């Protein structure tokens, strides 16, 4: 592998019937990421269950209950590498009741693969997946129109599905959508170009994943540094060292930059940027670094260091697209813990503005109780100010989770609008 190879994270959405497992199996198998002992184990289980051939779903379904029931319960992560990139697949179940898993897998993805069965075209599930991909602002969407072999590799069938999808997706906020006609089973346009569809001029799926431009997926303009912890070694060689440790959430920081610490408002200049014993001139998202400043300022976890001329919004009132993740429904005006970057505060859901029907995209403003898998627009008030950006500007400084203090469970995830 080359030193400049990047990491690309993608989700796969679709049901077993769409050929999702077959597609993942093919990507893993063709990139030599399935090992012989794993394949042997799957083959023997397939035989025991009386399947013809090898059931690739067994490869991704890791829990006993999943294998026994033949369903995917939880997100499974899979890995493969080509000479050009390393890939992480978040394989998420496609059923309606698993919105929370789709949202989880989507939250860190650079790309989403949405599978459409060429015989059935765009169905409700396709719309749901596209909606969640747009809601979570996955930068790139690849619609794979699968089972082209079952529609005689027809260009007309392919075009008609593109039209169906575009009609629907024009209502969504998606920047980069591509369409690829494939047959996961036969391998057409997965790794190798299809000989059966010479009318398709685009690249096969793997080549698309290997070459798509992802360096701009992270905001490199607005410099944001949430402080995770403070390093004070107090040993002989570093007696006065006071390093602010964290992972840069956006933009580029350089030694000498004039910065402001929020929420206190103190200003200073960056003295050093350190990674282990190496001093850097500049650092950028998503690097984990430690930073020292010219002046001795009281800074602690939850504070944010930004440039003086480019600041996030400091506010106690948020409008959030909220996905409810827990069996326990929301309680009206109940208090929750809210976590935003490294900042922990208390918060209250002041108002449910509307709920989305994720199949029709209709808004319902009468139903005010948030239940598992609901996606709603809400107003939240926090006890202390948070330093936030809109989620579409920055996925790190624009996201929050809510925690129920009675159970310590994560009950909701939100995107700031």
């Amino acid at each position, binding site marked *: 592998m080359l030193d400049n190879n990047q990491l690309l994270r993608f989700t796969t959405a679709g049901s077993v019937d769409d050929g999702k497992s077959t597609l993942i199996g093919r990507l893993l198998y063709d990139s030599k990421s399935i090992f*012989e002992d794993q394949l042997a184990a799957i083959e023997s289980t397939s035989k025991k269950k009386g399947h013809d051939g090898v059931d690739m779903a067994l*490869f*991704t379904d890791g*829990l006993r209950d999943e294998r026994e029931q033949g369903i995917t319960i939880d997100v499974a992560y899979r890995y493969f590498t080509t000479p050009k990139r390393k890939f992480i697949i978040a394989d998420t179940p496609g059923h309606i009741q698993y919105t929370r898993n789709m949202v989880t897998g989507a939250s860190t993805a650079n790309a989403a693969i949405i599978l459409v069965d060429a015989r059935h075209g765009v169905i409700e599930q396709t719309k749901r997946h596209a909606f969640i991909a747009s809601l979570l602002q996955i930068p790139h969407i690849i619609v794979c129109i699968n089972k082209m072999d079952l529609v005689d590799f027809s260009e007309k069938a392919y075009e008609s599905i593109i039209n169906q999808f575009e009609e629907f997706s024009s209502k969504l906020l998606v920047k980069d959508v591509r369409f690829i006609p494939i047959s996961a089973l036969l391998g057409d346009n997965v790794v190798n170009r299809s000989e059966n569809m010479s009318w398709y001029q685009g690249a096969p799926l793997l080549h698309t994943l290997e070459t798509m431009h992802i360096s701009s997926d992270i905001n490199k303009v607005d410099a944001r540094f949430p402080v995770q912890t403070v390093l004070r070694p107090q040993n002989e060689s570093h007696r006065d060292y006071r390093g602010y440790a964290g*992972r840069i959430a956006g933009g580029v920081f350089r030694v000498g930059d004039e910065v402001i610490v929020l929420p206190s408002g103190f200003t200073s200049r960056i003295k050093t940027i350190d990674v282990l014993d190496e001093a850097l001139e500049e650092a950028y998202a998503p690097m*984990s670094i430690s930073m020292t400043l010219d002046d001795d300022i009281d800074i602690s976890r939850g504070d944010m260091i930004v440039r003086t001329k480019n600041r996030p919004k400091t506010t106690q009132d948020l409008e959030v697209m909220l996905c409810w993740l827990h069996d326990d429904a929301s309680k009206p005006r109940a208090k929750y813990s809210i976590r935003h970057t490294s900042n922990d505060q208390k918060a209250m859901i002041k108002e449910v503005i509307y709920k989305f029907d994720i199949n029709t995209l209709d808004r319902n403003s009468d139903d005010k109780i948030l239940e598992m898998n609901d996606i709603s627009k809400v107003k939240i008030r926090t006890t202390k100010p948070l330093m936030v950006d809109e989620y579409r500007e920055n996925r790190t400084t624009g996201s929050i989770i809510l925690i129920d203090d009675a159970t310590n469970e994560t009950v909701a995830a939100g995107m700031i609008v």
Partner: protein
Amino acid sequence: MSKYYLNYLDELESEAIFVLREVWAQFDNPVILFSGGKDSILVTHLAKKAFYPAKIPFPLMHVDTGHNFPETIKFRDDIIKELGVNLIVGSVQESIDEGRVAEEKGKSATRNALQITTLLDAIEAHKVDCAIGGGRRDEEKARAKERFFSHRDDFGQWDPKNQRPELWNIFNGKHFEGEHFRAFPISNWTEMDVWNYIKRENIAIPSLYFAHEREVVWRQESWIPNSEYLTLEDHEEIVVKKVRFRTLGDITITGGIESDADTLEKIAEEVSGMRQTERGNRSDDKRSESAMEDRKRQGYF
């Protein structure tokens, strides 16, 4: 002109350092579970980076089965001295002597499952609220379902079907008294990534990973090292082979592979051509399809 993007190893490193600092910020009493294997050595190296120029601010914990490779114990003691951190040892032998657990019987008996009790006892005795491990999602199918921050109830048990959702990089480590977390900073690394990084950073690892001559016996498709704990069966015979180990566990159950790879470059090259998973040589995972899930539910690493 800078490129302003990270390569895959830098991104994995940055993610792991973020997780380690998040553990330090969210827990009162974390430890690194240190087995002397390459993954826990890697986690320790990343912790050194995460807190430099300060020392790693928490101890290493070793669950000692008593069935060790002598090389591993020496390596452990050297690294403790070098880093200036504390070591906590949980001894399976003591658990046996105290009657907390009983030795397995029969020819395939191991102390592998016995470690669970010792580990949970050590976690309780030292009031550990987060045990950082070197588990990776690519290792095994139950591990593929792990969170970065993984909750354990007050019996130390994992409930894989009822895990906290983990979105973006926001980790919820809130817990009640008596419960603890396991944290897995290198969840997203593959075996190949680990070797490429060890090579790049020139991290010291035990000599057992490099090809060397050793007395071994052929058992369950791999070369099991000769040791005082080994009981030979009638048809088995001890031979000398040039072997190395892909993973390190109990000396009684860790099988070696025949190899000439005696440098990090050669190991990385050899691993990239491997067609078997690294745990394929671990008889603890061969017991059943759910062997790892079952042990993890009870509190295993």
